[in-house]
């Protein structure tokens, strides 16, 4: 484990999370560009928890755990909200020009694996996001 972070589900905290995610991605060997992509993906996933899992209840908690894995990085993002069905989490059709519905699209475009799980120890959801560094060929 690289580190674990817990913070209240309040939008201004994301400004504190991003630089740490960026430094973590760089520590795991990602380029600056890829690290900025990873920052976007994690930021969007946190924003979705604030908006859709907790409905802006700022007293709720988010726990982000970051792992260095063979050739990449893995994030586990945990909330303590009611169960989310992964089918309800869907990007919109990008051909419709409309605000909203981009977050999950960004996450899936950037990360190699996206996995929703129930927290094994009781309430809450775990979103596991994995990215592997491009191996220069």
């Amino acid at each position: 484990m690289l580190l674990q972070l817990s913070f209240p589900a309040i939008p201004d905290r994301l400004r504190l999370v991003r630089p740490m995610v960026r430094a973590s991605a760089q520590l795991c060997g990602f380029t600056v560009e890829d690290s900025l992509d990873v920052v976007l993906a994690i930021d969007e996933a946190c924003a979705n928890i604030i908006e859709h899992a907790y409905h802006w209840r700022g007293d709720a908690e988010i726990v982000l755990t970051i792992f260095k894995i063979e050739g990449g990085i893995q994030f586990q993002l945990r909330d303590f909200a009611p169960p989310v069905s992964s089918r309800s989490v869907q990007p919109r059709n990008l051909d419709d020009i409309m605000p909203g519905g981009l977050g999950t699209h960004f996450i899936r475009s950037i990360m190699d694996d996206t996995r929703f799980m129930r927290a094994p120890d009781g309430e809450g959801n775990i979103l596991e996001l994995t990215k592997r560094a491009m191996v220069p060929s």
Partner: protein
Amino acid sequence: MNEFVSEEAGKLVVRLEGEVDLDRSPAVRKLLFDCVTRQMDVVVDLSEVQYIDSSGIASLVEGLQAANGNGTKFSLVAVSGQVRRVMELARLDKVFKIFDDVDAALAPMAPVV
């Protein structure tokens, strides 16, 4: 994050700075609406924006739609780095009129792309 609005060559130039994220995008959305409501063309200068997320992009899309709705023009300036990347991921880089600098956006013969 700071925002500055100035009137130049008959258009409203909105200069955004810093990080346009879930925390700051509601203020940006409101500002852009207010500007479009003044029935003037709006130019959004993004050169000092270091970071934008989907909520920031959504504010820009809403500004564009409001401008389309009331027949004014809405364009972006100096989209580079992380902001350009996010626009491309959202496939919106072709949807917005994007100029390299404010002068180009203000030029009377600015081509309608």
